[in-house]
């Protein structure tokens, strides 16, 4: 069994495209709205 550090080193890095997506303010604004809505719905569902 590999050690945790070996597993970390073997774990895939995000692609350049994914990295850009994570930092792109426009895409992230859309994600912000979607995530906020999702969490609000989840909280209300169990409220």
């Amino acid at each position: 069994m590999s050690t945790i550090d070996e597993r970390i080193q073997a774990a895939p890095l995000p692609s350049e495209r994914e990295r850009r997506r994570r930092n792109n303010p426009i895409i992230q604004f859309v994600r912000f709205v979607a995530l906020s809505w999702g969490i609000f719905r989840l909280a209300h569902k169990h409220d």
Partner: protein
Amino acid sequence: MARIVILGAGVAGHTAALHAKRKLGADHEVVVVSPNSKWNWIPSNIWVGVGRMPAEKVVFPLAPIYRRKHIEFHQALATAIRPDGDAEDARGAVDIRYTDPKRSGQTARLRYDYLINATGPKLRFEATPGLGPDGGHTASVCTPGHAVDAAAQLDDVIARLRAGQRQTVVVGIGHGTCTCEGAAFEYALNVDHELREAGVRDRAEVVYLSNEPELGDFGVGGMVFEEKGRRVTSSEWMESLFHERDVRAITHAAPTEITDRVIHYDSVADGPGSIEYDFAMLLPPFGGVGLEAYDRDGNDITSELFAPSGFMLVDADYGDKPFDEWRAADWPRTYRSPRNPNIFGVGIAFAPPHAITRPARTAAGVVVAPAPPRTGMPSGMMGKIAAFTIVDLIRQGGDARPHEAPMPELAAACIASTGAHMLRGSAATMTMSPVVPDYQRYPDTAGRDIAETRGEIGLAGHWLKRMLHTAFIYKAKALPFWYLIPE
């Protein structure tokens, strides 16, 4: 007129007090007992701890809010519960010791008809020699004061790195039975972010030290997400993030002793080890705050109300059974004390029936057993339903059906900051439903509903966390329409 006494003004207690008063108005009394004069939005202590936010932004004084809402506030520590009253009065009572400067040390006995225990955790730094900021060698971010000290120590690390020295920063848990690994994870990645922002990351080693069997376990047995049509475990997700950020990890381990330079630990797979450090932020294990209980004649009945850990016994199944036999149904639904149904234990103050992550021991017998987290969203929900149950009991009498908030049905959102900056920040946004996995109901997806259990990393998460900071402080200040903001 009924009198509700609430012990603790944190997420659970403050939520309970505001909802109870809103529903009951002037007809009934709501009383809060809490030792601190200020309310603290604990999740943002992480940002105070890396110097991104001043401590004043995460606290505000409670007294003016309680005055405005006509809630009686005693700045005091509760010391004992007398559920059967005493020789003078058969009503339940709580003994308190004042902490406010004017009455410091004075004691009083408050009568109640209903009691909510929301006293949160005792920070048990004493559990590991050398742990903690007071008398130990490590920093903490559990209180705003601790976080300010942590930020100062991190500044020193950055100064030494700028001077060309190499530095090792260890972030994680300070004992094998800790909970709140999510907070330690956040702090580790925020430290990484700050070191990058300062342009000194290449000379620093950042190590995450945890009792979790694998990364992404968080004391809830890990999660399974669906990502682009593929199942991904939270451990794979976190390993990838740690790789990207170049953060090392020591998992399934428990610190055993900490000196001013070295953390000694024992690990389940590899046995004893040690790591030299220049700065360490290690969270303490939690225990109950040590409330005692007495019957009418003054006999000690603490063990009838509280588990040995000091957490309050509620309507859970505390039967002693092997780990593999626990069920989601063992978890409490109403948070009422079986001995005294007019007493509730909510938030961190209630005793969980069992661990969610499988407990383990090292070859030397050191316990490595992440305790179940009771995060903000479920804690707020518990406070709210306890208040609503009491309101119904007052209005409808003893037959009123109690409200329920079982953790095997509740969902939680965990937005783990991985760097604070409006354009260069990020966070790992995770939702899980339910919090306590139900392996009977969801056998193929690690006990959770795959449609509501998700993970996503990006700048949006940072904005979300910042928005929640503002929203929850607004809500806690009971500003107009505060109750529309969900828990």
